[in-house]
């Protein structure tokens, strides 16, 4: 297929899932695509709308940036294009990536394709359950739905506390957060600079590895990046030399019996194949969420200070003085969640509070990192849940406020962002609701090869049933 044919099919599929609200903007069907025989030639990619792009506006799903054209491509977008990838469109997210449901967006929530009213088959079999409005997870829900529904081969997300792995888990796709500093953040509109990592969403671990190898490496525009070696997937993984840790603190309150069951069965699977699987303790895990919450809000308060409506972004029509203009532009331009975090962050950073909150949170972060360092002395990978359950319905999810949602949803994913280690979520099985259940693997910093090799081994063993969209009740849509 020519690149334009791929784009045409992708756009067709994107229109088919329009009701899921995965995209904020889509590519022009007739856009000129330069010929390129790079590693991603003929691949369409959905990019979360917090990565700067020259071809699309970049909104962060916020009124503040609803008309913002950055004028430059994020490094990861440029690298994708350089390898021949075609950017299909920009995907929905929680405003400025602050959320775990893709519910708090200027453009409305993104619905999960699983459980949706769209006709689909699962692993070649027809579905049994009635449609129900399930959240996609977040904050990279748009990209996860785009990949899960087959609009494109690869989705770009961002991952600060689990924002790539969480929606991947709910949407039954692979969600990969590389090691902090191995992929450039230049052009990613930041949430928490010290934790943000561009994340990769794909149908297979192999695609995730390929994409990582395209994106990774030193970038002069991001001083925190380093040169890394590409991830290599071992063809014949020798599990007998693999040490797998099961951190007991991840068996937390609210963990669904179904997730617990697949966690146990997958551990057993590894053990039976020769891996040494044992329980470990990471005692500071439970402090991670509170610590994350403080650091997140402090950096948010700081990072959001630039949105004053003067040089770009929403500018209030009212406002008689500079101060008033700032205040009005910001309160009109930001949603409630964003404003709440800015307020809390500024409170934490006040001189009188600094030691009690930001200072303390930095110390706790150090302890969490130490937990990981200790574990890596004895273990190659950690196996944990990604999310605590299958995708909740919007109704269930909305019973909690944004903070409670994040506390619940980020519990297992967020420590990896604290320590910077790579982590991947892979779908394992279906729940009784016919929804994906996923697990997470983590490995030593910069050891993407082991992480993804083990992930691919599990992927092969479990052969998770793929979702296949139908144009009507019986006709399968051409597979991309």
């Amino acid at each position, binding site marked *: 297929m020519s690149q334009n044919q791929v784009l045409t099919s992708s756009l067709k599929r994107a229109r088919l899932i329009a009701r899921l609200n995965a995209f904020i903007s889509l590519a022009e069907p007739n856009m000129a695509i330069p010929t390129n025989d790079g590693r991603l030639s003929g691949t369409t990619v959905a990019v979360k709308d917090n990565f700067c792009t020259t071809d699309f506006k970049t909104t962060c799903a916020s009124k503040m940036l609803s008309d913002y054209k*950055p004028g430059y491509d994020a490094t990861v977008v440029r690298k994708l294009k350089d390898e021949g990838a075609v950017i299909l469109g920009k995907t929905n997210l929680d405003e400025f990536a602050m959320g775990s449901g893709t519910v708090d967006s200027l453009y409305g929530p993104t619905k999960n394709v699983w459980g949706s009213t769209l006709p689909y088959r699962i692993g070649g079999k027809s579905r049994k359950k009635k449609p129900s409005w399930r959240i996609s997870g977040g904050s990279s829900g748009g990209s996860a739905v785009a990949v899960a529904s087959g609009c494109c081969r690869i989705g770009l997300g961002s991952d600060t506390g689990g924002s790539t792995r969480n929606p991947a888990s709910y949407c039954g796709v692979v969600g990969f957060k590389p090691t902090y500093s191995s992929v450039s953040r230049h052009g990613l509109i930041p949430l*928490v600079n010290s934790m943000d990592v561009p994340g990769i969403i794909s149908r297979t671990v192999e695609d995730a590895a390929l994409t990582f190898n395209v994106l990774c490496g030193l970038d002069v525009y991001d001083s925190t990046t380093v040169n890394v070696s590409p991830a290599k997937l071992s063809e014949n993984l020798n599990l007998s030399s693999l040490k797998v840790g099961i951190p007991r603190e991840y068996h937390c309150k609210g963990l669904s019996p179904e997730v617990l069951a697949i966690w146990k069965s997958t551990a057993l699977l590894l053990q039976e194949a020769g891996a040494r699987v044992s329980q470990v303790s990471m005692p500071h895990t439970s402090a991670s969420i509170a610590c994350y919450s403080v650091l997140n809000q402090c950096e948010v308060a*700081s990072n959001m*200070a630039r949105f004053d409506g003067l040089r770009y972004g929403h500018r209030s029509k009212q406002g008689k003085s500079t101060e008033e203009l700032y205040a009005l532009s910001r309160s009109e331009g930001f949603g409630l969640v964003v404003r709440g975090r800015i307020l809390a962050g500024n409170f934490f950073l006040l001189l009188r509070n600094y030691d009690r909150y930001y200072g303390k949170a930095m110390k706790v972060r150090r302890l969490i990192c130490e937990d990981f360092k200790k574990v890596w002395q004895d273990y190659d990978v950690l196996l944990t849940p990604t999310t605590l359950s299958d995708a909740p319905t919007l109704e269930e999810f909305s019973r909690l406020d944004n903070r409670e949602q994040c506390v619940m949803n980020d519990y297992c994913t967020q420590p990896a962002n604290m320590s910077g280690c790579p982590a991947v979520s892979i779908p394992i099985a279906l729940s009784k609701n016919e929804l994906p259940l996923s697990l997470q693997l983590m490995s030593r910093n910069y050891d993407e090869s082991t992480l993804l090799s083990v992930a691919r081994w599990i992927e092969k063993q479990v052969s998770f049933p793929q979702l296949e969209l139908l144009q009507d009740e019986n006709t399968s849509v051409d597979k991309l």
Partner: protein
Amino acid sequence: MVTLSKLSFTFVRCPSFIRNYAAIHNQGRDLACTKNKTSEWEGVVGLEVHAQINSVSKLFSGASTFFGSNVNGNVSLFDAAAPGTLPVLNKKAVELGLVTALALTCNINPVSFFDRKHYFYSDLPAGYQITQQRCPLAVGGSIEFPVWAPSKNKFYSRKSKLKQIQLEQDSGKSLHDDYLNRSLIDLNRAGIPLMELVFEPDLSDGEEAAALVKELCLILTRIQTCTCRMEEGALRVDANISIRRKGEPHGTRTEVKNLGSIRAVANAVDFEIGRQVNKLSNGGSVENETRGWDATSSQTVPMRDKEVKMDYRFMSEPNLPPLRVSMSRQPHNLLIDVASLKNSLPELPNTTRDRLMNEYGLSQIFTNNLVNEEILLALFTKLINSKEGRDPKISAQILTIELMTLVNKKVTSLDYFRWDRDTIGEVVDLLQDNRINLATAQTVMAEIANANMDTPNEIVTKLGLAQISDTEFIENLCRQVVESNPFLVKQYSNGKNKMFNALLGLIARQSGNRVNMKLAAQIMKNVLSKNAAK
């Protein structure tokens, strides 16, 4: 390389350094209060200097730092705080900061950090400034500098300790258009690298403060880390000022911000000390406030009510790894090598002064005047090195007094191509060989300044200015003067020795300043004693 002549050091250029320095000094005092009131109090002054680092690109972006660019012409995406852009530290700027720290004998931190300082202002695009609050580039250090004491008619040496040097971003500029009720913003300055130098409150008056800034400018231009063009805002001074009764702890301090010239530093500090003395002497109190210097009315004025107390909500800058420099002798291929920067330091002004005094026996005033003006110092070195036996004192006098007199009268400029080693060397030699006297030297230099293209020797010949050392001629002249001025002679013989100079003055005038006055003095003595014997 920028020369000091472009700076607004007007008082350095005067023919008589002393006279003009004293004038400024007194002006400062007039603005303060009466002398007897000041005497029970003493000022406590500490300076904070923001110096723009002399790099071609900004501290965290590749945008140019060129001063004369179009409005908003030097603005990268990062400088406009475009979302998603990240800071990338300018290695050259760090090196220049380190060179400055070394020149001021600071202790360099092998690891330093960057922090965000938050406040909302329209010319601060990110809503925070990246600075080094917790762990700066360097700490400690000091600066030693000469201060002119008019009462003693000499220089004394003063030292101010340095608290720290930190790297930070400059802000943009806002222009307030009151007529249309709008603000215009120019981000060309936003992100230019600054070194903030925080000095301890070791000074006691405006003269010392001005002298510190002057010395700092000399050092920074010498090591080429800052242009020190204060009129372009390349160097800005804030002064913390309080007063105390001698021996007591100091009182509440005020901060006078944004002093844009050395004269402003001297005047503002002295005015503020005087203002505080007046307040306290009259039973009032000094408020802890920020004030500005109004050059038109020559006084400090309260700045427009800023927030009572700013909470800058400092936070570490997460996008910049710790700044590491190599302190060991083995160079590290990725880190900046401090040892090699130290080796590359040029001779610093204090060392030059000592050398000029010790090697050439020059006076404090000659020494300071030469060191203050880079072109003069270079010329002096060339004059001495190009001919053996050339008199350093005559050379220094011709440069710092005779040439500078013409420059200050705006008859010529130091850049004029005739003021090179050969021309000035000839003048020095003519004088040193007694072929002309000082007055003739002045005439010759004035001729050259007025576009006479002849060499000094040619000028002397063509205009018949050669010094007359013919003893017979001089003796005749002396006799004539003695004979035609019996009254002066009588007074002289009655013990009024001053009259001798008056008689010599007549000799000089009658010979058109051409007579060798040294010789004339000897002969005059003889003639007078013979006359007395008669």
